[in-house]
């Protein structure tokens, strides 16, 4: 063992993986199989997007539960305390009206899932279908059906949030402009598509009166509180456990109606009931994402400086609100962060949430930022082409260089490397060489292009950031409880709830450095409300920043206690004690005492502790930061087949700055996964419904995630700008890949097709859409050879 080894910054292999790659990970479905006598649930769902329930008929004696079976259950309703917000209530099971396809109406239980599906088929739900409204723009028409009839909609039909912001001089900026660039950006509907769909096992223990919900979930404590509130029971009667979770990406953050129904059913029947969602249910009725439209106008001077930005944003949030963050997260984030890393003083925005007869929306990796980044980056490229400027130069001219910077909305941006990442991407691509190759290709009738995307990723939002949205339930802080047992091993109990990110490994590295132990002597306990401190789980790229910060603070406290005991033992001053290599030593000497020896004293010989120290080695700390921005530049190189509209991704370059990287391999993994989902967003995945609201993409034959065949090698370069916005120096990095990739890809396609004057502003840019743009631009095209 080398002295003073630092674990932070090393690409340690993840402690989580040996079990996972050997098939020993225990997921919800495994837990369901472990309980003897587990019943399996299936939900009876609405086949139509809108209608009135006339009756629900089940075979006599069949175990079918409806809203009536759960008399007294409250609706789910999360609120924002703002005058421009209309709260939407969600019943646990629909009882009078159905408002989206797949809405749960009844729950059946049987000895197996197959039998439950047999039974569900025999339940007859008589629904008088009514005319649905599916499109957000159409829904605001006063003549359109009202999704929540009887609810007061003072801001317009089906408008449930209408937020506005404007600076004084916006109109003047547009009057001064040399060029006004207008764009319509459309991001279609997606599903976050975790490889494991949702699922839960509710086990009621009649002996204790407690119910344990083992669930694929990102926020176990929040889920416990929500279940208690909705079911009107004491929170102590509930325990929520999250075992291994097979991806979540936001889809397992919000409280599902199905989990509430499952707990209610388990308590009603005194049974253990599992519901393992299948892929079709997941695509139909889990949570959807995106479905935004932006109308954007940018005012530029002839040098390409952005003088003003005017935006009208509409988010189709579906039939209900999610819980607890509400549908407001989409339009409000878009409004607050649209200008991104570009210096801007004049900004006007209107951002609306519109309810429709579509599946409700929940956050998905990046939330609004993949779309707002697409909007800004398309604006920059379109402006550059209009003004005959280089896309790199227009960005260099406008990117923020001096920190701290405040966006027009007042949002503070801490130091980052916006220009530096762009420059590094230009170098990594050999942009000059690429432009030569592009010209040669053009001479051969081929269409190759490059696209850039520069963005900031706001991460580590603490309570103040969420409070700015006026959330009734305000997440933000994280607590870490740290203890050293008598053998000198460290246990961290955290409120964050990692589900594949490798946080246990990264936290172990961080704690190892603070405490002078090896990471393998640190274990992290998470995902069990009975054994972890109350916290907000893992979402919004927060865990390394916030739980990491709390871990560092807790470690400092524990280290101080260890130093004090050591100093007492060694008759030295605590300031002179260093914790390293598993020992506490007097600096500059070889005099020391091992940490297990100190731990023994603290636990087993507490009479030897310096007064007034209490026995044991147990501390706790909480961290609640304001938030920080990580940043990156993505660059994509594509070749477009003009005859089919197919886009081939040749290269994908990422220059990422996530501050201090505790484990660079994990950071890189996050970027790879995020970029892949961004490519999915840009080119492949789209939930399509027909005019009657039927989902046409209810399986993976039709909803198309890219595979290893479609995703190129992702080339990542790391920069590290350390700021004091995060006490560890780490910035979040979970979402950046998904945020930047769509804009880079669509800019690259537009660059490739620039000889035809084509700008691609709609995603996914499917082959059919791209080919249609080419045919419109080149009506005489014959197709055929390339």
């Amino acid at each position, binding site marked *: 063992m080398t002295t003073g080894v630092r674990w932070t910054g090393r690409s340690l292999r993840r402690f989580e993986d040996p079990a996972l790659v050997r098939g020993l990970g225990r997921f919800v479905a495994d837990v369901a199989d472990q309980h003897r006598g587990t019943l399996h649930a299936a939900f009876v769902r609405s086949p139509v997007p809108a209608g009135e329930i006339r009756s629900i008929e089940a075979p006599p004696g069949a175990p079918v539960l409806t809203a009536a079976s759960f008399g007294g259950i409250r609706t789910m309703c999360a609120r924002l305390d703002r005058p421009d917000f209309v709260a939407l209530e969600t019943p646990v099971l629909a009882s009078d009206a159905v408002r989206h396809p797949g809405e749960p109406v009844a729950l059946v239980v049987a000895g197996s899932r197959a039998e439950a599906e047999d039974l569900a088929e025999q339940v007859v739900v008589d629904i008088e279908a009514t005319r649905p409204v599916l499109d957000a723009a159409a829904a605001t028409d006063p003549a359109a059906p009202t999704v929540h009839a009887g609810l007061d909609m003072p801001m317009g039909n089906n408008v449930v949030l209408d937020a506005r912001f404007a600076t004084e001089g916006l109109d003047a900026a547009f009057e001064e402009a040399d060029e006004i660039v207008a764009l319509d950006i459309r991001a279609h509907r997606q599903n976050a598509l975790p490889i494991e769909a949702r699922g839960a096992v509710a086990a009621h223990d009649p002996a204790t009166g407690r119910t344990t919900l083992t669930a694929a979930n990102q926020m176990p404590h929040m889920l416990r509180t929500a279940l208690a509130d909705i079911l009107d029971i004491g929170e102590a009667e509930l325990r929520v456990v999250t075992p291994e979770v097979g991806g979540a990406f936001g889809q397992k953050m919000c409280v599902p109606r199905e989990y509430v129904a499952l707990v209610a059913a388990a308590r009603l029947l005194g049974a253990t009931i599992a519901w393992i969602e299948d892929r079709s249910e997941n695509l139909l009725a889990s949570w959807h994402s995106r479905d935004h439209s932006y109308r954007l106008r940018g005012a530029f001077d002839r040098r390409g400086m952005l003088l003003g930005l005017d935006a009208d944003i509409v988010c189709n949030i579906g039939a209900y609100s999610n819980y607890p963050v509400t549908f407001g997260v989409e339009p409000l984030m878009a409004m607050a962060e649209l200008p991104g890393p570009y210096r801007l003083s004049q900004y006007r925005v209107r951002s609306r949430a519109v309810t429709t007869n579509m599946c409700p929306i929940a956050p998905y990796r990046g939330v609004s930022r993949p779309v707002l980044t697409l909007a800004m980056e398309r604006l920059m490229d379109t402006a550059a082409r209009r003004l005959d400027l280089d896309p790199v130069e227009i960005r260099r001219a406008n990117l923020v260089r001096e920190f701290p910077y405040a966006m027009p909305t007042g949002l503070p941006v801490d130091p980052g490397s916006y220009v530096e990442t762009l420059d590094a991407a230009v170098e990594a691509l050999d942009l000059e060489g690429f432009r030569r190759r592009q010209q040669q290709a053009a001479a051969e009738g081929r269409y190759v292009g490059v696209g850039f995307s520069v963005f900031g990723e706001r991460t580590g939002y603490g309570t103040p950031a969420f409070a700015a949205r006026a959330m009734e339930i305000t997440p933000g802080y994280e607590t870490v409880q740290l203890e050293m047992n008598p053998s000198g091993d460290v246990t961290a109990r955290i409120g964050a709830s990692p589900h594949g990110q490798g946080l246990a490994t990264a936290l172990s590295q961080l704690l190892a450095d603070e405490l002078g132990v090896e990471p393998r002597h640190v274990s992290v306990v998470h995902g069990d409300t009975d054994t972890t401190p109350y916290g907000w789980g893992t979402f919004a790229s927060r865990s390394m920043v916030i739980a990491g910060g709390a871990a560092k603070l807790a470690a400092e406290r524990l280290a101080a206690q260890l130093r004090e005991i050591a100093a007492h033992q060694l008759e030295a001053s605590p300031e002179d004690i260093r914790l390293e290599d598993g020992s506490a030593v007097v600096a500059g000497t070889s005099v020391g005492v091992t940490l297990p020896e100190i731990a023994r004293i603290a636990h087993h010989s507490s009479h030897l502790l310096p007064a007034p120290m209490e026995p044991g080695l147990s501390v706790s700390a909480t961290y609640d930061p304001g938030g920080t921005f990580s940043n990156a530049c993505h660059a994509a190189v594509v070749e477009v087949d003009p005859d089919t509209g197919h886009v081939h991704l040749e290269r994908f370059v990422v220059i990422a700055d996530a501050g201090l990287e505790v484990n660079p391999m994990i950071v890189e993994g996050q970027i790879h996964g995020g970029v892949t989902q961004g490519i999915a967003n840009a080119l492949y995945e789209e939930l399509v419904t027909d005019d009657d609201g039927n989902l046409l993409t209810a399986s993976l034959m039709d909803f198309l995630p890219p595979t290893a*065949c479609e995703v190129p090698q992702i080339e990542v370069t790391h920069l590290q700008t350390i700021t004091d916005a995060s006490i560890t120096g780490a910035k979040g990095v979970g979402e950046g890949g998904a945020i930047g990739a769509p804009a880079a890809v669509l800019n690259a396609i537009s660059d490739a097709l620039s000889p035809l004057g084509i700008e691609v502003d709609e995603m996914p840019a499917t082959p059919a859409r791209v080919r249609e743009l080419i045919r419109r631009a080149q009506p005489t095209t014959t197709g055929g050879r390339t």
Partner: protein
Amino acid sequence: MKPAAFEYHAPRTVEEALSLLHEHQDEAKVLAGGQSLVPAMNFRLARPAVLVDIAHVPDLDRIEATDPGGVTIGARVRHLDLEHNTIAGPLGSLIASTGRWVGHYPIRVRGTFGGSLAHADPAAEWCALACALDAEVHCRSASSERTVGAGDFFEQMAFTTCLEPDELLVGVRLPRLSDSCGVGMAEFARRWGDFAIVLAVTAVERDGDSITGARIALGGVAGGPVRALNAEAVLNGGPATAETVAAAAAAAADEVDPTGDIHGSADYRRDLVRTMVTRALDQALA
């Protein structure tokens, strides 16, 4: 997404399989790899009461040379075995290049040639190949036996063939292609391994620079695989030039009547027909 209840049988002989089909008629489905049937059962789109699994029936897994120079492909020959076939000449290379496009590797390991034909997905590669080459499909029941040309085997309705409920597709004969025959296969799908949006299989016999016999089959543009007969007529007797290919591709685009779905409108498919026919013919004439 669990199948409705069903009975499972694993016969050890063709006769046993045919007897089960005779006994259960409409209630039974043949399981021949299960790469389409099993998902359809999980979605409860297919609900056979009885599955007759031919995975253990001997002899149906052979590729046999037949006179004069053709081959007979047993019903349960795997896609992968065809992709890596040792059949000589242009026929072998067309089968290999077509096989590469069938699904993903795991699908090609389990899925079968006969299963694909009997399933009759309108965008399936093997169905188009069988159609292009006028394959002869051998069908047997407990009491009879017949050979049906591919043109009659596929009905122009998706997933529909002339197979009777008690019949088993036991093998398919593909005719010899002359050594000078040029072959081509072009497909467009959203992702590698997906069912085609449009695909074209071609085989072109030439006498010097003159085209003497052209076959073009298309997938993804109708209820079943179709021959582009007008395009073939444009080619036959014409010179092997880019202009002839362009005219044939235009004729093919003109003669199809595709229906649209979420992956491509009718218009987009028609547009792709021209491109895929061009590319397949370019290969055949290269």
